[in-house]
C-alpha cells in the first residue's frame, strides 16, 4: 500500500503489463513471437475452415435459388435482405472497434485492432449480396416516400419542389455508390494498417508469405516520413470509413425498411440501426478475440484487458439500445396515431411478438444485467457468451424488421403513397429452405473469408504491439511500482 501526497492510495503493480510466459521488453522478440504464431496453421483451423466453406457453398446455392425465384414478389426476399443487413451490422461494423479506440488513444485496442480491420475483407460478400437488391429497390416513379424527395404527391407550392428533378432511380445509384465505397474503404484500411507488418513478412517471413509481403508492403522501410504518412492516412481512411458506415446504415434503414411500411416515419431509426451495428460489431469482436485467444494461440497477447474494454463498451451500448428503442416506442405508443399504432403492431405486438421479446432479452436484458458485474466483464467466457446472445438477438432483430416490412410492402392493401397501414399481416413469413441456406451460408461465408485472409495477414497487429512498448513504463511511486502509460497528442 502506498499513499501519494494528495492522499490517494495506490496498489503497486507487481508484474509488467503485457502478460507473457516470460515477460519481454524487446521489440524484436515481439515480432518474432507473433510471426511464429502467425506462420503455423493447425489442423483444427483447416477443419473449421472446411466447415465454414461448406456452409458458404450452401449460401451460394441459396443465393442462386433466390435469384432464380425472380424479383417480382417482395415478401420472398425478406430473409435475403435480413441476411444482407445482418452482415452489414456485424462484419462491416467490426472495424469500428479498431477505429474508435485508436482515435481515443486507448491502449487496450492494440492486440485486437487488426482482427477488427480484417473483417472488412468479408465486406466483399456484402457487395455480392447487394447486387440483386438493386433490382428489388422500388424506384421513385410510383411516388413512394424517399430520402430523395421525388415528391410527386407533394403539393406544388412547396419550397423544395426543385428536388423533383431527382432521377427516379437515384436510390439505386446512391446505394451502389455507398456500399461499394464502404467495401473499398474497408480494404484500403486493412491494407494500410498492414503495411509495416507486410514489411515484417517480407523481411522475416518465408515462402509465399514473403512473396506477398514484398508485393504488398509497397517498399515500406519505416522512415519517419513513412510513419507520419502512415498515421495521417490511417486517420483519414478510418474517419471516412466511419462516416461511410453511418451513411450506409442511414441509407439502408430508410431505403430498405421504411419505404416499405406506410406511416413509418421514425427519425431516430437510422441512429438505432447504426447503433445496433456498433453493438453487434463489438459482439463480433468479442467472439473473434475469444476464438483467437482460445484457439488461435494468442493467449499471451489478448488479455482480460481487451475483454474488459469491450465489455464496458457493450454495457454502455446495450443501455443505449434500450434508450433508443424506448425513445421511439414511447412516442408511438403515447400519441396513439393510427398509423403509428399499426406500425407498432407490425413490428412489435403483432405476429413478430415472440421474435421481439427474444430480441429484447438477448440484446438488452442479458448483456446489461450480466455486464453490469465487473467479474463478468473481466472474464473471458462471460463476454464470449454474451456476444453470442447479442449476435443472435441482432440476427432476430434484422429478420423481424426486414421480413415484416417486406412482407407488408408486398401486400395489396398497402400502397406506397399512403401514410397509414389499414391492415397488418396477421402471420409471420416462414423461411423457405433457400432462406435458411442463405442465413447459414453467408454467415459461414464471412467467417470463411476472414479465416483465409488471416493466413496471409497477421491477425495480431505487430507494429502496434511494438509501438506500445514505447508508451508504457514502470515508475516507482513511494514504495510502489506503478504502471505509467503515455498518451501521445
Amino acid at each position: 500500500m502506498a499513499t501519494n501526497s494528495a492522499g490517494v492510495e495506490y496498489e503497486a503493480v507487481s508484474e509488467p503489463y503485457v502478460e507473457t510466459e516470460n515477460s519481454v521488453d524487446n521489440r524484436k522478440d515481439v515480432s518474432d513471437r507473433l510471426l511464429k504464431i502467425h506462420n503455423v496453421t493447425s489442423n483444427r483451423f483447416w477443419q473449421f475452415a472446411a466447415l465454414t466453406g461448406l456452409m458458404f457453398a450452401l449460401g451460394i446455392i441459396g443465393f442462386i435459388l433466390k435469384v432464380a425465384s425472380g424479383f417480382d414478389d417482395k415478401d420472398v426476399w425478406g430473409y435475403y435482405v435480413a441476411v444482407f443487413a445482418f452482415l452489414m451490422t456485424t462484419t462491416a461494423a467490426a472495424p469500428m472497434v479498431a477505429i474508435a479506440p485508436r482515435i481515443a488513444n486507448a491502449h487496450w485496442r492494440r492486440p485486437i485492432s487488426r482482427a477488427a480491420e480484417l473483417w472488412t475483407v468479408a465486406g466483399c460478400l456484402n457487395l455480392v449480396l447487394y447486387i440483386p437488391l438493386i433490382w428489388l429497390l422500388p424506384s421513385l416513379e410510383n411516388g413512394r416516400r424517399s430520402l430523395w424527395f421525388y415528391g410527386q404527391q407533394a403539393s406544388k407550392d412547396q419550397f423544395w419542389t426543385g428536388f423533383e428533378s431527382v432521377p427516379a432511380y437515384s436510390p439505386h445509384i446512391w446505394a451502389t455508390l455507398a456500399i461499394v465505397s464502404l467495401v473499398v474503404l474497408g480494404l484500403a484500411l486493412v491494407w494500410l494498417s498492414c503495411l509495416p507488418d507486410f514489411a515484417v513478412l517480407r523481411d522475416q517471413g518465408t515462402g509465399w508469405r514473403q512473396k506477398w509481403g514484398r508485393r504488398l508492403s509497397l517498399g515500406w522501410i519505416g522512415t519517419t516520413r513513412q510513419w507520419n504518412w502512415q498515421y495521417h492516412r490511417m486517420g483519414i481512411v478510418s474517419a471516412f470509413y466511419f462516416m461511410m458506415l453511418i451513411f450506409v446504415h442511414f441509407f439502408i434503414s430508410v431505403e430498405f425498411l421504411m419505404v416499405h411500411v406506410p406511416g413509418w416515419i421514425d427519425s431516430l431509426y437510422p441512429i438505432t440501426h447504426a447503433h445496433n451495428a456498433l453493438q453487434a460489431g463489438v459482439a463480433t469482436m468479442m467472439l473473434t478475440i475469444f476464438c483467437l485467444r482460445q484457439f488461435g494461440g494468442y493467449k499471451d497477447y489478448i488479455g482480460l484487458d481487451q475483454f474488459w474494454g469491450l465489455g464496458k463498451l457493450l454495457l454502455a451500448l446495450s443501455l443505449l439500445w434500450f434508450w433508443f428503442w424506448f425513445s421511439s416506442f414511447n412516442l408511438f405508443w403515447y400519441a396513439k396515431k393510427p398509423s403509428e399504432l399499426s406500425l407498432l403492431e407490425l413490428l412489435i405486438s403483432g405476429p413478430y411478438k415472440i421474435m421481439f421479446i427474444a430480441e429484447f432479452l438477448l440484446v438488452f436484458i442479458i448483456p446489461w444485467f450480466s455486464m453490469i458485474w465487473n467479474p463478468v466483464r473481466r472474464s473471458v467466457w462471460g463476454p464470449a457468451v454474451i456476444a453470442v446472445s447479442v449476435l443472435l438477438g441482432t440476427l432476430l432483430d434484422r429478420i423481424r424488421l426486414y421480413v415484416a416490412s417486406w412482407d407488408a410492402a408486398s401486400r395489396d392493401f398497402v400502397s406506397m403513397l399512403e401514410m397509414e397501414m389499414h391492415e397488418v399481416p396477421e402471420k409471420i413469413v416462414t423461411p423457405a429452405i433457400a432462406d435458411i441456406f442463405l442465413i447459414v451460408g453467408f454467415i459461414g461465408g464471412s467467417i470463411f473469408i476472414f479465416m483465409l485472409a488471416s493466413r496471409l495477414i497477421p491477425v495480431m497487429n505487430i507494429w502496434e504491439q511494438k509501438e506500445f512498448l514505447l508508451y508504457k513504463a514502470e515508475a516507482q511511486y513511494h514504495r510502489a511500482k506503478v504502471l505509467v502509460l503515455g498518451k501521445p497528442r
Partner: protein
Amino acid sequence: MADSQDRKWGMVVDIDRCTGCNGCVVACQSENNIPNNLEEHFNQRRAIQWIRIERYWEGEYPNVKARFIPVMCQQCGNAPCEPVCPVYATYHNEEGLNVQVYNRCIGTRFCANGCPYHVRFFNFWEPEWPESLKNQLNPDVTVRSRGIMEKCSFCVQRIRRSTREGERDEVQVEDGDRAISPACVNACPTTALTFGDFNNESSQVSMMKEEAMANRGKKEGRGYRLLDNLGTEANVIYLKKVDNSAGAVHGH
C-alpha cells in the same frame, strides 16, 4: 346517475346546413358565462369562443366561395389533451365527455398545445363583468378565474340538471330533449347541429352517424371526422358540404 354509465354523448354537424350565422357562438357565450370578448381581447388573439365558426375561402372573384365550419371541442374518445395534464384537471368522464376541472387547473397550457383543433382556451386575464351584467350569469356554470383553461363541455350542466330532474320526476330524459341539448344545438336556426347519445342506437345522432359513416368515401356517405388521421376518435361527426355549383372544381 344510474344510467349515465352507458351514455356516450356526441354531436353531428351538417356543414351543408350551416350558414355561418354565429347563432351558436352567441348562445354558447350566454349559456356558459364566457367573459365578454372586448376589442383588446380580439387584438391580443385571446378571445374566447367555445364554439367558433371557421370561414374558409375557395377560389377568387368571381368564382369564389366562402365555406363555414363550426368547430367546438370534439370530445375525443382518445383525447390528446387528457394524458398530458399533470394535475388531472382534464379527464374523461363516464359519459364520454372530456371535462375540465377548473379548480384543479393550474394553467400549464400543456393540454392546449396537445389539442389539434385549438378548441381549448386560456383565461389570460381575470374575467370581468359590469355589476349589473352579473345578473345574467348562469348559476349552473362556474365563472372561471384567470390562469386556467376552459373549453366546450357539451353544456354538461344541462346534461346533469336534466338527468337529475329526470330522476327526481322519474322520467327518462329522451333523445333530442331541448333541456339536455347544448345551447348551440338549440340555437342553430338551420338545425346544422344535432346532439345525442351515441350509445343509444335509436337516438337521432346514432342513426345519422350510422347512415353517414356507413358508406364513407362514397357520395352518399357524407360523414367524416375532423383530422381523423390523428386517431383522436372524436365524438363530433361532420357531414360533408355538398357543392353543386356549376363547374365546381373542389371535392373528391
